[in-house]
């Protein structure tokens, strides 16, 4: 691999720990839970068999323990808070062989056989109870697997598989012990939510506001019948400050501050947080008074957070390879075709300009001293995390994948998270770029070519992770649709340096194929954290969001259509804000 630009970039990041650490037993993973998992796994692989039916050829147990806490507050008052702990066991049991097994199949006629193999496990490390719970979950999973393989064989009697791709790839054993001795105090969530929400008090222009603080300490224990084992621990603290206002014409506007850290001490100081929240409310106030942009077609510059959101929301989802299952219903089989990732046919083709490369890297701990999101030492198959070169000098090299092979992507890139495929941190790296000033000049030159007296710069785009109306957030979104969240920080810019804020706008068309025609980028890159929406069978996986860091330069597109949202505008409130009566 010869990638000088990316290599240079790698030097710029602080590499604290890279990759999994090979182990020598016995380790911290020798817990009662691991012992119960191993013992029941060994017994099941040796003895679990129903009369003449097939034995399992692969069995994996993944246990996820979640110690969580969270609080939501508004204007200094608590709305809700909760904390708790639970443990879930995910059983992956396969019958058949690596070439053909019970998976990659969806039955429309036998819903019970398709249910996920999830069971509740005790959080007490009591060996007998754990064994009993694992035993019962394995028995259910085995019976379902037999139903599935029978259903799959029946369905394939009337279908011919175009490509004979194995159902599962064989992997050598790997062990990783990240320990499970970390602590994450959930108690500060309440105070923090209250305190940060206090920063939005006294603002009569805000119709709604909310601060959500979420903490998780997720521990994962894993064993499989190939000898892979791991123990992993991931703390998470998320802070979302959200506010909404109605513009003078009634248009509803939202903005947010979102940040995630691994430790409480990594959060910015209260004064800094309050400053960020206050800046957000000021932005909202400015947008309330701003004039709408009706329609614009021309060059657009996406800076900072907006560039990162664009990469995460439009380009990133295409970098994930998802295998379409066999359905026992021809209509479903046909319907599923529309969720096929168009990038599967683009491997070897140019998808970015020649001066851009892109990497997914879950091995890098931090960027400029700040921990990165997307990092995990091993994926949920127990494979050591690996850096994946996705686009090299504009050419698509591969897609992110798991142990479920595709004809186009036969090998796992160790990208499994639960039942989804997710990236590590995304690095979009330019081999050449312009200074900010040069980039602006090019923007105006492109605008002038079209006879425009102004151009557009987008600095903020809405995030799928941070919405006040959670019901609409990520709900049943088509994984391959190119809808982008609204532009909440867009400006009309003029060659004389004047900037006019646009209250809200949407991109009417912008898809992954437009990235090929990026005309130029900045030399410098910046890092932003965002929520990646993974998909299952090509469709968005509901509310699951994977925080990921995106390191990208500013992106200049030549042809982008921007317009005012088409939705009807609600009338302004009939009653004045309670603060406005003095």
């Amino acid at each position, binding site marked *: 691999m010869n990638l000088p630009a990316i290599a240079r970039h790698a030097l710029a990041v602080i590499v604290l720990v890279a990759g999994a650490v090979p182990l020598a037993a016995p380790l911290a993973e020798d817990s009662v839970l691991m012992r119960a998992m191993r013992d029941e796994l060994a017994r099941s692989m040796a003895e679990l068999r129903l009369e003449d039916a097939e034995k399992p050829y692969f069995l994996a147990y993944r246990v996820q323990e979640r110690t969580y806490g969270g609080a939501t507050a508004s204007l*200094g*008052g608590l709305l809700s808070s*909760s904390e708790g702990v639970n443990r879930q066991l995910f059983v992956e049991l396969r019958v058949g062989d690596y070439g053909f097994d019970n998976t990659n199949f969806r039955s429309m006629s036998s819903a019970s056989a398709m249910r996920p193999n999830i069971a509740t496990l005790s959080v*007490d490390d009591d060996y007998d109870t754990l064994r009993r*719970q694992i035993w019962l979950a394995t028995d259910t999973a085995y*019976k379902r697997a037999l139903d599935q393989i029978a259903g799959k064989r029946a369905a394939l009697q009337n279908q011919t598989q175009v490509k004979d791709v194995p159902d599962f790839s064989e992997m050598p054993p790997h062990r990783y012990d990240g320990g499970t001795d970390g602590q994450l105090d959930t108690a500060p969530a309440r105070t923090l939510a209250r305190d940060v929400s206090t920063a939005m008090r006294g603002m009569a222009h805000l119709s*709604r506001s909310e601060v959500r603080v979420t903490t998780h300490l997720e521990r994962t224990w894993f064993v499989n019948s190939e000898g892979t084992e791991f123990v992993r621990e991931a703390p998470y603290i998320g802070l979302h400050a959200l506010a909404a206002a109605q513009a003078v014409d009634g248009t509803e506007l939202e903005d947010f501050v979102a940040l995630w850290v691994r430790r409480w001490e990594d959060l910015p100081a209260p004064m800094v947080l309050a400053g960020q929240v206050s800046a957000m409310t000021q932005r909202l106030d400015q947008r309330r008074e701003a004039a709408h942009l009706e329609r614009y077609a021309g060059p657009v510059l996406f800076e900072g957070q907006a560039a990162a959101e664009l990469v995460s929301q439009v380009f990133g989802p295409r970098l994930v390879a998802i295998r379409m299952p066999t359905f026992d219903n021809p209509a479903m089989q046909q319907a599923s075709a529309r969720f096929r990732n168009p990038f599967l046919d683009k491997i070897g083709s140019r998808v970015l300009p020649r001066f851009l490369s892109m990497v997914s890297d879950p091995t890098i701990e931090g960027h400029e001293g700040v921990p990165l999101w997307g990092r995990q030492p091993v994926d949920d198959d127990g494979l050591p995390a690996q850096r994946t070169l996705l686009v090299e000098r504009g050419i698509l090299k591969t897609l992110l994948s798991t142990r479920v092979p595709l004809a186009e992507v036969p090998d796992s890139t160790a990208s499994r998270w639960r039942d989804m495929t997710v990236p590590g941190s995304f690095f979009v790296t330019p081999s050449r770029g312009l200074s900010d000033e040069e980039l602006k000049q090019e923007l105006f030159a492109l605008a002038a070519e079209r006879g425009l007296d102004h151009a557009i710069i987008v600095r903020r785009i809405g995030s799928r992770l941070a919405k006040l109306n959670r019901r609409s957030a990520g709900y049943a979104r088509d994984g391959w649709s190119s809808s982008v969240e609204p532009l909440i920080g867009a400006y009309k810019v003029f060659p004389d340096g004047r900037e006019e804020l646009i209250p809200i706008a949407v991109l009417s068309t912008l898809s992954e194929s437009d990235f090929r025609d990026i005309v130029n980028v900045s030399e410098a890159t910046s890092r932003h954290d965002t929520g990646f929406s993974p998909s299952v069978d090509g469709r968005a996986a509901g509310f699951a969001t994977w925080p990921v860091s995106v390191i990208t330069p500013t992106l200049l597109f030549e042809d982008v259509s921007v317009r005012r949202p088409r939705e009807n505008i609600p009338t302004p409130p009939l009653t004045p804000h309670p603060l406005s009566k003095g």
Partner: protein
Amino acid sequence: MRRAIPARPGRGRVAPGALAILLFAGQAAGDVLDVMREELERSRGILALQPTPAYYLSYEITEDETVTVGAEFGSLTRWWEGVRRSLDIDLRVGSPTLDNTRELSERVRRGSLGFARAAQIPIDDEEGLRTVLWHRTDKKYKEAIERFTKVQADVKVNVETGDKTGDFSLEKTEVASEDTVALRADRTGWEDKVRRYSAPFADSPHVFSANASIQGNVETRWYVNSEGSAIKTSVAYYRLSIRAVTRAEDGMVLPRTEQFFSLTPEGLPNDETVMAAVHEMVGDLEALRTAPLVEPYAGPAILSGKASGVFFHEILGHRLEGHRQKGATEGQTFSKMVGESVLPETFSVAFDPTIRRFGGTDLVGAYRYDNQGVKARRVPVIVNGVLTNFLMARLPIEGFSRSNGHGRKNVGFAPVARQSNLIVEASETMTREELKARLLAMVERDGKEFGLFFDRIQGGFTITRRDLPNVFTVTPTVVYRINLDGTEELVRGVNLIGTPLTAFSRIEAAGDDFQVFNGTCGAESGPVPVASVSPSILVSQIEVQKRATTQTRLPILPPPGHSFGEMSPSASMGETR
């Protein structure tokens, strides 16, 4: 105008083993009610001047604080603690004769989904409280005028129904305030209990799940309306649930549950009582696995007090809920039967949310004010067998123009008439032996081989709509066959089914053994806690149908640490008493 609302006192944590003392919180509520009232008046003043004025407005804030712990087979599986504060608004435009809440015809209603929607609201900060009240009232008003336009159009294009009563009754102003009850959750102690309560099931290789959970929650409500009512109530609920499941050789899933409820933690049964119940459950489950199946049957039966409580809840209670007498899609079984005899004259039935306790057991259907600001009261619905009344929310129906304090709901739903504590009274009762003797006489008279005794139940459900069969189902967990020779034999695999009027006409006699059933009732205004107090009853004919079952085999491998021999089915023919 800023006012600091005193912070709510923290939960009263009780150290393991320490003597629990009833704690009451301070007087924060007055201020919350004041702010709600001020904001209500401010919005009402402006909304009353709109082209479509608001004629009624109410705010209800519910704070739900909960602690739950759960264990399986002797080990803890989860704990959870949380608090949530929600706002419900009832805003009406039009007039009490016709307003935005009028039920729309099926044609118009189609496609609208009834999801629960409640805004979260801070109560410990005045600015937050006012801002959310303001914003949600505006939203609610806009929804109300939009819906009222639909209602007006709907009324024009549809034929009038027989019931000419309006949409809202005027009620008395109520002012009351209770102190906030502190949640007395001894989480460590509860964890220890649920471990111990679920542990004995681990000794049985045939029990496939065995959960014990304890939940404590305090529901505090602040309510104000534009009629001047201002009410604060606070009540604690403590529940202990134990559920274990075995499976018969034929794949039938056989659950056995025990539920205990109290308004205080010390009202829950002591360890000795619970462990005795647990051991009885273990025995029942072992016996149920091999108990004989009952084929579909119609014949005489005795329903225990708990079973008959659910029976009355399903066939009578739901059909007496006021709005069901009005809805064009409702079966309206009892609408025109006021003054008629529907039960033997020895039976009377009342709904009484003012009773908090019966025979040493707290009743979960008790409350002081309903969710429409109306004071709870006893409502006799059947007096000496004659139907006299319905359960009323503030939706008037023909002949019943006022609420009787049964407008209930869960957070996020609109209130409708719902049940509270259902109390069945009998002026003549029989001992268990007398009931059994009379049952056996009926069995013999009808040429049957046996009668049935429904002892323990999980719950039930019913359908009251007219476009579907008006049936009910009671789902028992423990049923005995009473043979002609008087022996009682445990059986499995049946649910009690029927239609309401037929079932009622077959009630023959009451026992002297009143039992309490505490549960949760789900209907269009969300899950609400309800109770029933009922004697066992003798029914001359009930019908049972086969219960849905799976064809799933028993586990292939024996439980870890057990041999195959222990897993083989026993030759027993079931428990006989």
